[in-house]
């Protein structure tokens, strides 16, 4: 791995994990206390609804499709920039078909084992300190399983970049779908509120692109099972989580604006 590539991976990784942590930290500050008391629970309040006309769904769909296309193009372009041997024959899921010159990453198996074990041990310590241990153990377990599978399989070839790229495209696809669903359900009462949701979506899309770049740089040096497991836990799970950013932001802004 060249120094430039290492710097890019570190920069992108910092942007990704920093962005994810900041976002999830904001989410954890949610308050629900004014659900109480029960008699004030507006479960049956009949107030006017903010129904939008049908044509607006068309614009939202168009907007989501545009965002999705831009995200996938940006992702594949960035991946090609980061990995010189990497070539994608298509720029849109699912026709995307990426190839990479084979490398011999079997030397990194040991590092993956050590790294995964460290993650699991850290998770074990986390068990006693924090309440989210089942999730941490599950995700660390998946990574460790990937590493063990590689060792047992004695694999010497690199991860399938096409599969990784399709995973990345899927995450972006879900994010666009999440944005569309959130807007359709929450029906923002004003353009300004909708803009907040759009900003949240675009912001999280940028964070995900950082993550995709970092993961591409990282996993091309890993054997396939470890790479797949790392993608599943470090990219897909937070990816799905950030796909809900527009819902979270629209919810808060809608509540504040009555």
């Amino acid at each position, binding site marked *: 791995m060249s120094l430039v590539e290492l710097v890019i991976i570190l920069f992108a990784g910092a942007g990704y994990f920093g962005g994810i942590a900041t976002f999830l930290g904001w989410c954890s500050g949610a308050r*629900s206390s004014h659900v109480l008391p029960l008699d004030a629970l507006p479960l049956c309040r009949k107030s006017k609804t903010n129904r939008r006309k049908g044509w607006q769904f068309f614009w939202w769909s168009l907007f989501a499709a545009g965002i999705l296309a831009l995200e996938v193009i940006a992702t594949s372009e960035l991946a090609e920039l980061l990995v010189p041997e990497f070539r994608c024959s298509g720029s849109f899921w699912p026709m995307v078909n990426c190839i990479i010159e084979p490398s011999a990453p079997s030397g990194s198996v040991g590092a993956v084992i050590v790294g995964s074990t460290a993650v699991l041990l850290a998770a074990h310590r986390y068990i006693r300190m924090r309440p989210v241990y089942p*999730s941490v153990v599950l995700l660390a377990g998946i990574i460790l399983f990937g590493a063990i599978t*590689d060792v047992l399989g004695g694999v010497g070839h690199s991860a399938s970049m096409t599969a990784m790229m399709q995973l990345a495209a899927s995450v972006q696809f879900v994010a666009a779908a999440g944005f569309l669903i959130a807007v359709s359900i929450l029906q923002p009462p004003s353009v300004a509120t909708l803009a907040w949701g759009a900003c949240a979506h675009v912001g999280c899309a940028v964070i995900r692109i950082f993550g995709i770049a970092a993961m591409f740089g990282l996993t091309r040096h890993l054997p396939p099972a470890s790479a797949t497991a790392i993608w599943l836990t470090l990219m897909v799970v937070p990816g799905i*989580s950030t796909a809900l950013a527009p819902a979270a932001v629209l*919810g808060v802004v809608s509540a504040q604006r009555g």
Partner: protein
Amino acid sequence: MVLLEIFILFTTTLGVVLAGRQFLLAWRVMSQPEACQPSDGRAEIDAVSDWPGVTILIPAHNEECVLAGCLSTMCALDYPEDKLSILVIDDRSTDRTRAIAEEISNKNVGVRVLSRAPEAAPGKAAAIAEGMAIAASDILVLFDADYLPPPGLLKQLVAPFADPNVGATMGRVVPVNTDAGLLTKLLDLERRAGYAVDQNGREMWGLNPQFGGTVGGIRRAALESVGGWRVGHLAEDTDLTFRLVLAGWRVRYLNHAACYEEVPEDWPNRFRQVRRWAYGHNDCLLGYWSGVLRSPQLSFAQKIDGALLLLIYLFPVCALVSTFAVIPLIAFAEHHLISWAWPWLAPILAAALLAPYTQVMVAAARDRQPHVLRALPLLFLSSCLSLVAASAGVVLLARNLIAGVRPRWDKTRRYRTA
């Protein structure tokens, strides 16, 4: 290897079908024009001229922290005094539960206490069965000892029994301790989706909502016609639901009949709760799945919904196994079914993941409390826990079935202080 691939494809199909069901229910609730569907129950209440006799059963095992608060709200319920009886079933408590119940009973003639012998069979179902034997009313209403019903709730739960086909009613459960921590906020979101969308959607579509064993009423005749409570079952409520609907009784869900409960505040407690539910629910799957599909009492839609409902706690273990299995398959095998299907499977699966979140969004929108969605992106933490806990429940069930061992009842811990 081929079997593994078939299993993964089965899991994927099941996940997509379950997600499709969740999307449909969300759409059904969302498409209802009024905020609270189908009504607030006022018309049903006004139509009742002669209220039936009701016994409220409150099984209590070491509930000294919450019982007094619960009983004080029970005594304030709006219902004809001569028609209402409250029976606290002290289920082998070793704390002050019995003393508290007797103290309140001495001050309120409508409150009675039944103390179970220390050697009595453990579990909520056994306690309720014993309480039912001394309750004389036609309608029995069940509450857990941590519940805090508002005054109008009882009439809302009892009014639908004017229809002789109704065998059971079920109200909505609302967490009271939502701000206790991250877990309670996430459980609040899950409860909203489960009740305001899933149960409510099934009620709207004329499917069979689930009787939850608490905040619910049951007609004695219906209960007796299906053989009473199954003592020793870990999901006695689900078990009863399926026996009722297979016998032709109707279960009604009443979204407006909302009642507070405590949800687990710590993750190990939540783990045990989900494990218990998964154990009992899959026990029901073994017992009723084919019966539901072959029942002449149920419509086609009810059969499909019932069968899918029974599969809900089997899916997590399938998903967990598939997640682990897919890693070596994608990584190693060059030409196999999964690699062929992967470009299509990945986005479909990912879109299916949005289904439960969509239900939460719909519930928050319908409740007009969209601010709670701020915690939505963290819901995957709770989902991971449920994945592992439900899988543990399935493993435990399989082990006990093979060994012929009866399950052990795990009591859910309470957090309120007396």
